[in-house]
């Protein structure tokens, strides 16, 4: 292949080990800094969980507030609360939600599969079709099919995701009655594992398509301009001059090079997908993590908020590392050290 790192073999192993160690140190440092910031941010919001519970109960007194604050540990000074929290983070203890009377870990684990299923489906759908459509548009730049694709992607990009979701529900659930309007699985009906999977799949279609739409638009447009960029590079001219077939040029030369910006953006957005589905989860009553965060925020359920933030930051950091790794696979010019 082309210009790989020219170090001797032992040097390469050492470099990789060093890079890995560096990653781990950075990872832990970033997580702790994020945890501290989260704590400060969450507690900076006015009001506390005791007042929310009182506010939603229609009646309140001093004793109730004092009881609730003691339960949440809010009667202690902030530095002590922060120290307690960081101690728990280090020991991988996410804490306990007094509001829901459950451990935060169990609350997150319960919600995570639904969110991952939704976001991973939407993400793959958006990425895959975005790349293909962007490719088509880019290769046929200026032709009518390009214009159609560009206009459609612009429209999708400009459409609020909740509105799109509601319109899809109106069309496919209310008018046509083809797809379920909301929920994760049909409730109260005994099903075999296979039936359950199919049932979840049916429920997944509308939310996944709605969520994918905006990202699809982004990838399509990005891919189109990236393809146009690469098409005018000298090595493509060289390939054409060598007499390579158009299809081979597109796949081997254009696609591979045009993918880099997509990977960058996708890497950043993959993180957002974990927590960014709150609107879709709300519209489709999808029992995911986004709603857990949103509710916890309104309820000032600090342990849950902090727990989810922490898990999300870990996932985002991990996805960024993964993005770095994918760079190397797609573009061997990116060295271990440069990526670290």
């Amino acid at each position: 292949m082309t210009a790989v790192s020219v170090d001797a073999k032992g040097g390469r192993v050492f470099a990789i080990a060093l890079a890995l160690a560096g990653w781990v140190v950075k990872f832990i440092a970033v997580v702790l800094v994020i945890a501290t910031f989260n704590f400060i941010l969450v507690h900076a919001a006015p009001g506390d969980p005791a007042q929310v519970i009182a506010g939603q109960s229609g009646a309140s007194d001093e004793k109730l507030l004092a009881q609730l604050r003691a339960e949440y540990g809010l009667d202690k000074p902030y530095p002590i609360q922060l120290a307690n929290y960081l101690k728990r983070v280090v020991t991988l203890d996410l804490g306990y939600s007094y509001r829901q009377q459950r451990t935060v870990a169990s609350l997150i684990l319960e919600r995570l599969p639904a969110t991952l299923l939704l976001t991973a489906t939407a993400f793959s759908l958006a990425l895959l079709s975005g790349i293909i459509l962007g490719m088509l548009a880019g290769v046929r730049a200026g032709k009518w099919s390009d214009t159609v694709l560009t206009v459609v992607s612009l429209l999708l990009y400009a459409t609020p995701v909740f509105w799109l979701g509601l319109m899809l529900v109106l069309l496919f659930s209310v008018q046509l009655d083809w797809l379920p309007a909301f929920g994760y699985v049909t409730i109260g009906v005994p099903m075999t594992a296979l039936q359950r999977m199919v049932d979840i799949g049916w429920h997944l279609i509308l939310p996944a398509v709605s969520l994918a739409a905006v990202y699809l638009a982004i990838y399509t447009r990005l891919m189109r301009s990236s393809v146009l960029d690469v098409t005018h590079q000298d090595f493509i001219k060289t390939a054409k001059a060598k007499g390579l077939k158009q299809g081979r040029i597109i796949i081997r030369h254009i696609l591979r090079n045009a993918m880099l910006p997509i990977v960058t953006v996708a890497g950043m957005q993959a993180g957002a997908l974990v927590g960014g589905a709150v609107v879709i989860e709300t519209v489709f009553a999808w029992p995911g993590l986004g709603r857990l965060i949103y509710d916890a925020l309104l309820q000032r359920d600090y342990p849950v908020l902090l727990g989810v933030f922490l898990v999300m930051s870990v996932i985002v950091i991990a996805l960024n590392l993964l993005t770095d790794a994918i760079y190397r696979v797609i573009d061997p010019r990116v060295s271990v050290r440069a990526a670290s």
Partner: protein
Amino acid sequence: MNRREFAKLLGLSATALSGIPLGVTRAVGQTKGGTLNTIIQPEPPILVTALNQQQPTLTLGGKIYESLLRYGSDLKPLPGLAESWTVSPDGLVYTFKLFPGITFHDGKPLTSEDVVFSVTKVLVETHARARGTFLRIEKAEAPDPLTVVFTLKAPFAPFLNSFDCTTAPIVPKHVYDGTDFRKNPANAQAIGSGPFKLKEWVKGSHVHLVKHEGYYRKGEPHLDEIIYRVIPDGASRAVALEQGKVQLTQWTDVELFDVARLSKLPNVEMTTKGYEFFAPHFWLEFNLRVKPMDDKRFRQAVMFAVDRKALLQRVFFNLGKVATGPVSSKTRFYEKDVKQYDYSLDKAKALLDEMGLKPGADGKRVSIKFLVPPYGEIWQRSAEYFKQSLGRVGIDLQLENLDLAGWAERTSNWNYEMTCNLLYQFGDPALGVSRSYITANIRKGILFSNIAGYSNPEVDRLFEEAAVATSDAKRQELYTAVQKIVVEEVPIAWMVEQDFPNFIDKRLKNVITTGIGVHETFGAVTLG
């Protein structure tokens, strides 16, 4: 083409699909049995009503936990767990006789010991609203398994109005005795004695209740199961109702602007009955510590300046009634012969002029910050309506939006100028009304106390005497007197007695039968 045909069209495995009703709920059958699908939103944190009194908890918990009494639409007591009851002539001794054969969901019997334990040990510890009433008990006795005797320290008229399922849910002593109630692991099972018991709770998705086989009322419950679905989005809830996925909605499940449209659905009926016990009262709240709101004339001007009929029509879509004073006309002891504040900009302006609040060059007399509570569409629209209305007489409102925690923090600590609020009346003025006006209840940091800071010794005296008077006639006299004073002084600008729509599938019977409405046990509800 329906969903199943569509699936086949797409060429999906027919074998995998056959037998799945794909979102269609189980066939709803005859009078006996069946599944009621309904909505719960927002999702409650826990289901134990003795420990949490948020609205959704109470709605759902009413099926799981029962109390000694129920209340008709006229708020008169009806038998609940108690078959009969007597009150001594001095108003001090209350004796309840329980129905025989009551069992908890774990099969253990419910006896008078459980009642005494729940009321005197659990509720006074965990339930802010019940605490105010039950701390008045001098002694509670259980002379035999079916008899409970409460002796009060002093007469307290609304005592008999405090045994609904939201105020006094009965919990099992054998589960909670000697434990930390809030941390008891049994809270996850929510063991009560109601006609339905918890089968499964998938957080974020649904709560599944099934029939309690050992229920003490013969033939009840009729339904096999109730499924409360968590549907956070208003538009999706409307779709669920339109598609027949749910057969019942309550409280704010259906947005008010959707009510007229959905009322035309052929398969459902709409009623606003069943909220008499709560009688939610919507009002504009002043901070009387801030000028010029300390002046009675200013508050009267506000009453004159807001066209409450228009507010009711435009913002509340006519779901409710114009409020005329502190006591809801749906409850007992309401007095309608009080000072009337008809809509009159001239009267409002005259009062403001008289105070010396003259309009400046920009037409503004005074600028006031208004906190908009985060309870949804109605609240936002109401705030905008107040801004428009008061703007016409030169009172400039600056709207400020906050989330619930922020709003609660600011208002309860008196760090506000004007806001609006909705309070329940809980079946008796001594429980739900006096708390907003009496001096003793000016308590910083506490929501639903007298946050305005209103204080009038005569009002204090009348409310106090009315709470302990033993005859209804005497109480009416005292409450009439106090209503006349308070309406003259306008410590709070009462706007609307808000109604909430219940949409009920026409196949459902006996859903709203009492003043507690959707909080009832649903033991008598039938489908088919």
